[in-house]
């Protein structure tokens, strides 16, 4: 089976002004038949080798150093280049050093304004931070951080209850891991979860290539704590953190009963007030009727007086 070649050209705009941005053309290169090195990196018979180019445009001697994060999940041939802006091309005596930590990298390819190195990233030991430093009157540098993909866990704890089931999900964005492993924390130790051994307690499902589920059945207080999902890539491992909180059912029951009691009390108050005000109304009505009767009586007597006065007046 022929190895597949994929090429990827990625460019970055630095923190300089947008006018400094340059687009590189697409670059296809042939594979170097170093088959022994690639054999150890792959499990399957088909080997996929990627060639990637990353370029950083240096903003100039005035700015701070530039940093770039590059995520790699499988064996890659990578070319990192630092390009200097055209306005500095007049500077002659420029020295460029590529370093990884303290180790200096020798084979630098130089074109008109850019300096690049080619690396073979085959396993975890090749990852790290690579820097290019331009020495002229002043120094300017850029850093490339080569890392495995990060896995996101959950910042907030998952709340569940005793006797219930908890489902914890880990996702890898964009990159497919080779394997997933789940760990639970016991004190300061991390213990791998073996779902075949404890099949009635744990179940690990691979929902899709990038997603893994851990189902914990019949929760108890001991299951409370921190869990880790670890994704294994060709070039290393990456972890995500999840927290599980196991509560007893008494915990929500207290506010529940408090609010139910409040509702019952309020309803009772409303009805009692209504009864009271109805009684008051009835009393007031009775009094009113009584007053009216009294008034009628007095009016009658007054009326007689009035008519007699009128009579007298006339």
């Amino acid at each position: 089976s022929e190895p597949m070649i994929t090429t990827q050209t990625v460019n970055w705009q630095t923190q300089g002004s947008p006018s400094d941005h340059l687009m590189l053309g697409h670059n296809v290169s042939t594979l170097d038949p170093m088959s022994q090195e690639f054999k150890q990196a792959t499990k399957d018979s088909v080997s996929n080798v990627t060639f990637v180019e990353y370029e950083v445009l240096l903003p100039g001697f005035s700015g701070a150093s530039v940093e770039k994060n590059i995520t790699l999940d499988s064996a890659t041939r990578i070319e990192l280049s630092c390009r200097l802006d055209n306005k500095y091309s007049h500077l002659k005596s420029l020295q460029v050093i590529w370093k990884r930590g303290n180790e200096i990298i020798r084979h630098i390819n130089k074109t008109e304004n850019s300096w690049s190195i080619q690396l073979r990233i085959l396993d975890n030991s090749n990852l790290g931070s690579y820097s290019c430093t331009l020495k002229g009157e002043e120094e300017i540098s850029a850093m490339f951080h080569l890392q495995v993909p990060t896995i996101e866990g959950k910042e907030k704890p998952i709340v569940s209850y005793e006797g219930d089931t908890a489902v914890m999900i880990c996702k890898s964005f964009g990159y497919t891991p080779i394997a997933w492993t789940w760990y639970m924390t016991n004190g300061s130790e991390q213990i791998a979860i073996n779902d075949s051994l404890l099949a009635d307690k744990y179940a690990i499902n691979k929902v899709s290539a990038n997603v893994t589920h851990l189902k914990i059945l019949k929760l108890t207080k001991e299951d409370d704590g921190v869990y880790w999902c670890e994704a294994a890539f060709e070039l290393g491992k990456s972890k995500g953190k999840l927290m599980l909180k196991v509560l007893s059912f008494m915990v929500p029951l207290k506010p529940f009963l408090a609010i139910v009691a409040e509702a019952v009390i309020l309803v009772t108050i409303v009805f009692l007030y209504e009864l009271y005000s109805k009684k008051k109304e009835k009393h007031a009505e009775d009094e009113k009727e009584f007053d009216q009767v009294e008034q009628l009586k007095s009016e009658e007597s007054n009326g007689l007086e009035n008519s007699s006065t009128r009579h007298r007046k006339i």
Partner: protein
Amino acid sequence: PGPPDGGWGWVVVFGAFISIGFAYAFPKGLAIFFKEIQDFFGTSYSEIAWVSSIMLATTYGAGPISSILVNRYGSRPVVMFGGLLCGVGMVSAAFCTSILQLYICVGFVTGFGLALNLQPSVIIIGKYFLKRRPIANGLAMAGSPVMLCTLAPLNQFLFDNFGWRGSFLILGAILLNCCVAGALFRPIGAATASGKTQAIEEGQATLKEEVTKDAMEMSSPMNVPTETKTEEEEGKDCCEKINQYLDFSLFKHRGFLIYLIGNVLMFLGFFAPIVFLAPYAKHIGIDEYSAAFLLSILAIVDMIARPTTGIIANSKWVRPRIQYFFSFSIAFNGTCHLLCPLASGYTGLVVYSVFFGLAFGMVCAMLFETLMDLVGAARFTSAVGLVTIAECCTILLGPPIGGTLIDTFGDYKYMFIKCGAVMVLAGTFLFIMNYYNYRMLAKEEKERKAKEEDPKSVRTENEVRNNWNKETTQDGPELEPLREEQEGLKKEANGT
């Protein structure tokens, strides 16, 4: 004597505020739990969204049942039972072990409970208020945005501390407060009014044999029946029995039909923009928190707009022409949506949210007020039930149609254009038809007055029944029917 227009009425408004608030805001507030429940049961997003849809469909679809129960038992017992049902629904949802059980507990049971909350609350406002009714309606409807602003952070807090099961348990208890709101709904006038109407109906039954023919001639909008007398009697008894519970004769009511058609059309474009506002904002590059803030702006403007609209609608210039004001606000709403695609960037969307909140509040505040204005407080109970079940379909269709437009064209602007166009159309339709309705009512009022002044007309029971018929078939501007009813009752009392 007429409705009190104050006093205990304001307490009732507060109770309705709580009740309506829960009914509208609760389904929206549940969305916070959906992600977690989806992960827990391992279902897709659309299966979870069904919970919301079933809840909304039940709340609107159970309208007629709510109306029938209120007609029979009055508002208070129905709301208290509704609150209890909501509580039971959510508490049982806390113990669910499958998504189907969630559909039933949260969707059907709680949805039905909310339906029993919504309709009676709106109905009882009509019973307590007449002169200040638009203000009362505006205040009560303001419950929806206020509750939403309260429920959203509360739900988040509950979820962070208790998980979804504990949250549902506590939410069940919180919903029991609807019972408290219901306890405040002291029965008023309703009992006496229904007693009087029943007396009139009994009187009607005895007079029927003598005056059917004459009555048919005089009450013009009713169709002239060609059946025999006995058949008419039997048919009428059966119809009247049903009409006692749910007034289907409303479908012959001109104003009611106008309102129904206009509103059903409007709801096609009413809710979709709210559903898609945040996704649209994210689509044009705004971050999640700012997008959520747009909805908060909308809710805050909505909160202020509703009582303000109530006050404006109550003023003596607007109240007689409240239908025009309503049509205007719908058209205004539509215009906002049509102009939304022109908004660029975050500031443009903020302006859109402000105007949308204003328009949304205006429409919602007058939604039930205009219906009360058209059909009168007595028939409003049945009217609201019939209207909500008709709106149910378009409400459910609105967002999915919008979603399909977005998916097909990959652009949000067609959804906004569709919603805007539909609402402008609905507003224009209502405006024109209400103009026609006002003219017809004025004409009929003139005819009625002319007949009354006719010296030849004797005050027979015939005429009494005639007046009563006219009232039931064409209720005009609000203050008239009440006066007519009172007059009719007085005549009735004098006659018998």
